[in-house]
């Protein structure tokens, strides 16, 4: 578990560094919403 967490942390740290390097004025990570309409009949 610890190794897995460290790996995820390192990956996200790399992503954060890339975002900073890109110089984005706004840098929030978008979470996409899907609204799904369906029926069982």
């Amino acid at each position, binding site marked *: *578990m*610890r190794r897995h*967490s*460290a790996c995820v*942390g390192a990956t*996200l*740290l790399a992503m*954060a560094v890339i975002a*900073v390097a890109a110089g*984005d*004025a*706004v*840098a*929030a*990570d*978008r*979470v*996409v*919403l*899907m*609204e*799904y*309409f*369906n*029926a*069982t*009949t």
Partner: protein
Amino acid sequence: MVNTLVTNYPRFVVVEYHQQDAYAKPWGEARGEFYNIWALGIPWFAYDGLWDAWPIDTYETKLQQRLTVPTDVTLELSGAELAADTWEFTAEVCVEAGGIDKTMRIYMVQALDKYPPAYSYSRNTFQQAAATEDVTVAAGACVEVVRDFTFDALSMASPDDIRVMAWAQQPLDGIPAEVHQAAQLAWPFVEVAFADGFESGDLSAWSATVP
């Protein structure tokens, strides 16, 4: 397909609204009218309130495209227990410094995952909605929207499948109404997120789990 996307994309929130069947709810059917879904029929999928994502073989590429669209809005969702079946949820909505002041309609809903269980495509089926609130947020500022949900016996029978979602959407009467940001919490509503400061590069408080 939706199951695969939910598994593979952590920055992806799904709410399923049944229409005109035994699992339909009035708010969910009104949501269908908001999107004018019957002009095309069901199944009907909206990404970030903008368009029907049909056909199914384009769902993933359209999701990938949408994930790359910048946003200046952040949304953090947290929960606090008030009673065994009642929780208070706070959506903190911010516009980043350097962003654009905007008015947003804040939605908060409760869903039940894998319900009804007889259908393999059942994901995060809508159960109830809180009253929406329109908020105006200046760049560099935040507002909080607080709502309570009491979960019914159906949801409390499968608490691990309870989901609460919030999103910040353009305050319009129908499609297209862009969703700026979304968030989701799962029972027991410990935020699946990072300690404050992580996104801005401050790692001093970060650990594998949020304390």
